[in-house]
């Protein structure tokens, strides 16, 4: 990590470690789950230039699998989340494989269509509990030791998972593989002409992103002790797009800031009922019009080192 990133990262860790003594842990855990989800999404849109409109499928399905295996099979939480991650990755492999041959808007449309199939499956299948979802999921003990029923035990587990996911995304972006991803985002035909089978790189990125979305979804179902249709429907795919755009596409901290802003907003605006959606839409439009690069993107563009500004990507 360069100096600026390292300092920002340490500040973020310090803030998050202290936060539950000031703010409600449940609120913070919600932010962290969505932050991880948005980081996973940003890996794809910000660094490969692939706009997926179906990420709720990975997030939501992983939530169901974690909730089901923990509640019905009595699996410990760590295994439940692991199975959630595997579910995300496996679904990512199938949906990614089908979508990656398409370009641009067609890619987005295919991911949306396939995630709708997953949604309808979740509505129909008996084990997902239909409209009720899977309720009263026991949080259990992490590795048989840490009692997740205690708010701080759960909080620091979620924080550890978030940080691990965040660092994994950082590493992926700054790896030999990440270099090829950036090349694909910048100029795919040129990358092909250098001998890279770009579809394979895109597919691996898609699977990694879906897996991390799965970790986020599985964790969320433990935090709220609930897996429901909300997390698997298309609005959730839209929400993660919104978070990433508001925070800053293609910036490492952007999705975290975006998730914090949107979740906070939803909390405080909850009293306005269905107006929340309209207010969100309004904020989205303001964002697109006034700070196109997102919050973090604009800050970096103004104060950061030259060339540090995010590079965007979705074509």
């Amino acid at each position: 990590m360069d100096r600026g990133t390292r300092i920002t990262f340490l500040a973020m860790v310090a803030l998050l470690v202290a936060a539950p003594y000031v703010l409600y842990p449940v609120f913070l855990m919600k932010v962290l789950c969505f932050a991880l989800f948005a980081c996973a999404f940003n890996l794809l849109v910000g660094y490969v230039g692939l706009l997926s409109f179906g990420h709720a499928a990975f997030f939501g399905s992983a939530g169901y699998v974690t909730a089901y295996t923990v509640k019905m099979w009595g699996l410990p939480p760590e295994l439940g989340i692991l199975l959630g991650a595997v579910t995300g990755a496996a679904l990512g492999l199938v949906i990614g494989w089908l979508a990656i041959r398409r370009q641009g808007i067609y890619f987005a449309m295919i991911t949306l269509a396939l995630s709708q199939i997953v949604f309808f499956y979740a509505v129909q299948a008996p084990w997902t509990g239909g409209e009720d979802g899977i309720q009263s999921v026991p949080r259990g003990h992490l590795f048989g030791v840490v009692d997740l029923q205690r708010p701080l035990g759960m909080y620091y587990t979620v924080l550890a998972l978030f940080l691990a996911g965040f660092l994994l995304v950082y590493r992926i972006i700054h790896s030999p593989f990440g270099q090829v991803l950036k090349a694909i985002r910048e100029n795919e035909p040129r990358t092909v002409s250098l001998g890279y089978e770009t579809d394979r790189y895109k597919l691996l990125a898609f699977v990694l992103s879906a897996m991390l979305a799965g970790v986020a979804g599985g964790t969320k179902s433990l935090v709220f002790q609930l897996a429901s249709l909300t997390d698997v429907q298309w609005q959730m795919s839209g929400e993660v797009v919104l978070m990433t755009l508001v925070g800053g596409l293609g910036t490492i901290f952007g999705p975290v800031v975006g998730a914090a802003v949107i979740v906070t907003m939803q909390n405080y605006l909850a009293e306005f009922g269905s107006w929340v959606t309209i207010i969100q839409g309004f904020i989205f439009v303001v964002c697109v019009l006034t700070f196109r690069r997102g919050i973090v993107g604009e800050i970096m563009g103004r104060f950061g080192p030259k060339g540090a500004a995010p590079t965007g990507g979705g074509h």
Partner: protein
Amino acid sequence: MAGEFILETRDLTKEFKGFVAVRQVNLKVRRHTIHALIGPNGAGKTTVFNLLTRFLTPSAGTILYNGRDITHAKPASVARGGMVRSFQISAVFPHLSVRENVRVALQRPLGTSFHFWRSERSLEGLHERADELIEAVGLSEFRTAIAGELPYGRKRALEIATTLALDPEMMLLDEPMAGMGGEDISRIATLIEKVAKDRTVLMVEHNLSVVAWLCNTITVLQRGEVLAEGPYEQVSKDPAVVEAYIGTGHV
């Protein structure tokens, strides 16, 4: 595989919805030569390049590279086989630095390009070679510059460095000197001449003095068909070629 011709096409044809852009082209590129493909705008030169490198699928005909039929190969595998192309429109990675641009090409042979868990520091060993290539195209002072911010001529030079980084057996250059000033042109022409010593170059170029200087063989394309072929002195006197070019004002 030391055949006389490194690349051969047989009746290569490409049709776009009824419009024949390339018609029955038989091209033979001799090993270790610089071969020019010239012709007026819209003649089909770029389309031929796209067919040869498999960015487009031929409607008919075959392509042999080193005696091997690559008519149905994948574009990336053609590149890995040693035939690497450049593009007519500038094709750098605009948000990467000059050095990173070249490094993307250099890193492939390491075999770590799927290693998402490995630090990018593992690529630093490539910097020395990258810097040599960057120097060869006269970009040393721009090493850390962002590629997208380079002037047009410099971007083209960077593309050549990136192509050379793969040490290709055969290079296909689509108008490598378009948009360059006089000084840049002679530097790049000298470089092409130098690197062509132990490889084969097929290039599209509108600047005929460069063609006359560099190229051993010239193929003239017009409306998708081969109009003439031979060394510069012969082709430039061909009445059909003179007529085709007078019409477009190139000579």
